[in-house]
């Protein structure tokens, strides 16, 4: 009884060892990436900020001491104190709780906008770059139309036209953001399509769609990821700007831009309503920018090997 079971265990173990050995280059690569990461202090700072930001978003209901929408008009505009470190706003709501709950809204804005704009951008960019010629011309001229307007103004126009809600603000920003990825993906696809390994796979008989999805896409993704992390700060800023202008999240949603906007008429005497969410925006944007720079450096092959 005992013997076969131990045999099985050994073979299971050796299969696992075999698996590890086969994947060794990949593991080494990951290890090297971690090593480079540790050597770049600013990237590390960015990582810590973003990790904190994500943790706060994840545990927001536990961390927030009060409800973000519970009003108490008898205590409105109370200055920061031990019980309310960020003070109270004009409706007596706890600013700290609003900022903490706001992280969830910011995270969802970033994730949804990134996904939508990357998907549109990659499809447009890779198709344009891979096929070239007239398809490229048409797709890129459409992209140029979007790029011809200042981003924020265009996002405002979309948001206003679609009626100001958080969802529409997200759609509006995605419609502006995808051009960045489309141009990057096109440049990468143009570079990659003329590589001999693409011709080789074409000679084997792969279809265009297969080549684009399995060969061009994986090779063009890394500059896009770098760009994505760099743009996340901008996305927050744009969302906050729309919120500030009343074209994004509507009260009483605790979106950071909207909170800043709430406090703007009380700025002279009650600075805390605006200052704390403003700082939250600034620190998060800084974190994303540091992280983006760090990722760019780490993925740069000249530094890598």
């Amino acid at each position, binding site marked *: 009884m005992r013997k076969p079971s131990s045999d099985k265990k050994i073979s299971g173990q050796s299969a696992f060892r075999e698996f590890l050995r086969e994947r060794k*280059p990949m593991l080494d690569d990951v290890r090297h990436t971690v090593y480079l990461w540790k050597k770049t202090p600013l990237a590390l700072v960015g990582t810590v900020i973003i990790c904190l930001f994500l943790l706060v978003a994840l545990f927001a209901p536990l961390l927030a001491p009060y409800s973000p929408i519970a009003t108490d008009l008898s205590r409105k505009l109370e200055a920061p104190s031990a019980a309310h470190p960020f003070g109270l706003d004009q409706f007596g709501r706890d600013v700290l709780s609003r900022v903490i709950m706001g992280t969830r809204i910011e995270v969802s804005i970033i994730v949804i906008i990134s996904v939508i704009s990357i998907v549109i951008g990659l499809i447009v960019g890779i198709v344009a770059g891979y096929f070239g010629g007239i398809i490229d011309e048409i797709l890129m001229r459409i992209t140029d139309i979007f790029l011809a307007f200042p981003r924020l103004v265009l996002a405002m126009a979309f948001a206003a036209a679609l009626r100001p809600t958080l969802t529409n603000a997200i759609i509006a920003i995605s419609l502006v953001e995808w051009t960045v990825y489309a141009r990057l993906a096109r440049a990468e696809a143009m570079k990659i399509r003329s590589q*001999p*390994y693409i*011709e*080789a796979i074409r000679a*084997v*008989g792969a279809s265009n769609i297969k080549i684009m999805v399995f060969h061009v896409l994986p090779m063009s993704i890394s500059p896009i990821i770098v760009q994505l992390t760099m743009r996340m700060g901008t996305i927050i800023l744009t969302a906050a700007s729309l919120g500030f202008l009343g074209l994004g999240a509507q009260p009483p949603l605790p979106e950071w831009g909207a909170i800043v906007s709430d406090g703007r008429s009380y700025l002279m005497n009650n600075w805390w309503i605006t200052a704390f969410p403003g700082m939250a925006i600034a620190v998060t944007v800084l974190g994303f920018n540091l992280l983006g720079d760090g990722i760019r450096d780490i993925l740069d092959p000249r530094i890598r090997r």
Partner: protein
Amino acid sequence: MQSSTSDDMLLQVSHLQKFFAVRKNLYSKPLYVKAVDDCSFSIQRNTVFGVVGESGSGKTTLGRVLLRLIEATGGSVLFDNTDILSLNTQELRLFRRRMQIISQDPYNSLHPRKVVKKLIGEGLQIHFQLSAQEIDTRVRDILTLVGLREEHMYRYPHEFSGGQRQRIAIARALVLKPEFIVLDEPTSALDVSVQAIILKMLKDLKKDFALTYMLITHDLAVIDYMADYVAVMYLGQIVESGSKDDIFKRTAHPYTSLLIDSVPPPTPSEHWSGHILNGEIPSPIHSPSGCRFHPRCPQAKEICKTAEPEVVEVQPGHVVMCHFPLGS
């Protein structure tokens, strides 16, 4: 051209042309680079058809046009009596299994982010309905066949040497069981010692799998070792073609003769009486009038500057494009 019947012919190419348009600026009339200009030849089954010429003579373009990796400007390519140039995208994709290419640069012809198993297995997935198990087995078999080991399956291309990479490229082509392979300078990027091993392997594989090769190279020693028939290209034209003996022993075109003479002897102490071919190959945009070789030809006469020579058959199967073929 050869005396055998057309059934023996795997590939019949006639009047094949590939011109690249170049414009100096947006408004100027396009000029044409005649990379392949009116080439006709046939390749017999189970033979090696060598194509030689200097850099820029259009030999690589010829190989890629044959496989429709770039679209031809004119002419026809009959592969086993199917006109490749008239196939639609879908038909062509399935047809590609039968004709493969091994390119000159093993460092860039393998996708850097795919492991060997993926590189080789991809074609199997496209052309054969196989289970994951069967693909695994076939990849293992083909790796052993080209002299690699099974444990190489999960490695990335950058972990291999040039010779090993070329073996992977050969395995990728061979796993599809093709009938025809274009070898585009398969050894020019490799060390001399590795070159010999790869060439020997290609020769053995040809016998075992009843393959037909078109071997593109600038190295006459490689031609001498591998080829049965040879075509010499100059500025997009085939200036002489025939059996290997016709080309090496009964050379008829002055260009061929100069090419053969310009090969240095393998031992440095040996006295070298050969000629060096003077000058560069002219720009294919402004190719010379008359015979394209006349500016560099030692035998050039007045007529060579004005009239383009006809293709003449000096012996059965041995054709030359020259006003004054040697030895006549």
